[in-house]
């Protein structure tokens, strides 16, 4: 137990603690925001471009007199939800593809790794997403499904590589020998032993999903206005860049810190769950 604690301490440095604190704060704030902040869509023609620190509007207002902090928090909420749903879809889909490809081999391997994964990865992600949006229209559902499929490919590659090594392990042979059904072997013997790098990838995927989602929203093709999102707030602010740069700088800082936090957390998780380090300590 003590060793475990020590290992966690080694893996999660001060940067990881800051990242985690920031993310927890952000999640809590964005959840309580609707109760304490003004309506993010409410326009107020008499209070446009209010500066920072205006009473009632801590971060000021935008060109339509909408409260910037409220919009920011509403944007963060949607963004985190879309990113989380995307990661979940990618994790489940990608792991299933990867395990199936490696465990069953031959045809399954060709179909999953050579056909599905290689073909999807042949597109720049943003262009693949634009293609799907053209067909199905923008919105959170299209966005989650598309990004889920896109990011599943990295999970598939990782799960595939890991399963190839685990497949030949003695405990898998043993499970085979006493007649365990295939599903039991996959869920009880294979999955637990390949989960560590998948968890790390999940944290990195949160970062990547926020990056891509905000980019699409910046183009006006992700989450649809007037629903606030970091990307569309930054896009709206472009017009007032010379006079009111805070309209862009504030959402930019939030989006950068969120992405940075998830990737720092991923680095920490990677160090914590790395089996080589585990052996080194105990």
């Amino acid at each position: 137990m003590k060793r475990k604690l020590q290992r966690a301490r080694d893996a999660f440095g001060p940067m990881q603690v800051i990242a985690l604190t920031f993310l927890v704060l952000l999640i809590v704030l964005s959840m309580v925001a609707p109760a304490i902040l003004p309506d993010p869509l409410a326009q107020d023609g008499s209070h446009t471009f209010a500066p920072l620190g205006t009473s009632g509007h801590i971060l000021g207002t935008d060109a339509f007199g909408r409260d910037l902090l409220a919009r920011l928090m509403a944007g963060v909420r949607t963004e985190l939800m879309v990113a989380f749903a995307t990661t979940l879809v990618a994790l489940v889909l990608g792991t299933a593809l990867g395990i199936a490809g490696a465990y069953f081999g031959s045809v399954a391997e060709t179909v999953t790794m050579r056909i599905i994964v290689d073909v999807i990865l042949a597109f720049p992600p943003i262009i693949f997403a634009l293609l799907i949006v053209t067909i199905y229209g923008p919105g959170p559902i299209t966005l989650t499904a598309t990004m889920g499929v896109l990011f599943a490919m990295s999970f598939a590659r990782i799960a595939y590589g890991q399963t190839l090594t685990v497949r030949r392990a003695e405990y898998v042979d043993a499970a085979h020998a006493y007649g365990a059904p295939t599903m039991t072997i996959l869920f009880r013997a294979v999955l637990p032993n390949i989960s560590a790098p998948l968890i790390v990838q999940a944290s990195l995927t949160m970062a990547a999903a926020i990056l891509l989602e905000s980019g699409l929203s910046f183009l006006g093709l992700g989450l649809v206005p007037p629903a606030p999102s970091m990307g569309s707030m930054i896009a709206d602010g472009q017009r007032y860049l010379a006079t009111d740069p805070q309209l862009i700088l504030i959402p930019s800082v939030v989006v950068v810190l969120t992405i940075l936090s998830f990737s720092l957390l991923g680095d920490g998780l990677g160090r914590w769950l790395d089996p080589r380090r585990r052996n080194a300590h105990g």
Partner: protein
Amino acid sequence: MVAYIARRLATGVGLLFLVLTLIFFVIRTVPGDPAALLASGGGSGEASPEAIERIREQLGLDQPLWAQYLGYLAGVVRGDFGVSFQFGTDVTPIIMARLPNTLQLVLGAVLIGVTVGVLLGIIAARRGGVVSTVVTAMGSFAISVPVYVLATVLAYVVALQLRWLPAGGFVGWEDPVGHLRILVLPCIALAVPFSAIVATITRSGLVETAQQDWVRTARSWGLSPGSVFGRHVLRNSLTAVLTIVGLEIGLMFGSTILVEQVFSYPGLSQLLIKAVEQRDYPIVQGVAILAAGFFIMINIVVDVLYGVLDPRARRR
């Protein structure tokens, strides 16, 4: 070597064929009548029966599926991506008119990114200590900044505040200096995350290679540290750098869409965004095929270079 290149090309063509197949079937998964949906701009308005009929004919939806598929493949092979719904003219010339501008950005960013990235990676690996930590930290920060945020900040600081460079617009090659001045900021915006990744890979590749037994052997022969580094360590680390450069160029093609938007640069971006909004499917499809083809081609080039640098790779 010839057999190796031929094999890579065949794999690339096979992959491109699968990409085309995917695109073909994706449009046909649209619930309901794709022609009606596309004609109505995504169900937002009522389409006239003539418009629906025109699109049905254009997509060949009145023919059996296999005939549609063959017709589509035959068209793509001839460089015919169909007729734009918005402009009513062939898609290929519309895209080709803007493609060179986008490729210039990609080329410029790759040149800057590789030079700066490899140099930073070498400095970090050779100096170690604080320099290495700083380069690594800057690297993970740089890849967390969305490229459109970086572009906006550059536009604000360098163009609007310092007034060193234009914040956007376009000047043709008739005025080479003006043209290059336009390219600088978008290229830097694209090159920063790219060079961060290149630097990280270069650094870790160099550090890893330097620990190899044969490096120790080379040193024990009495070769100078500079010659061990230049002729052995660096050359053997470049294969990893090459792989990541190939991967990242494909991604950069996507990022240009965002950067062009910030600088109102007349590349593929504005065309593509308008096409997505207007549900101009043939244009988006054309750009997607082009991007995938570009990516696949870059990967073949990378694989061949890899074979040149590392003869072991040719046997795989």
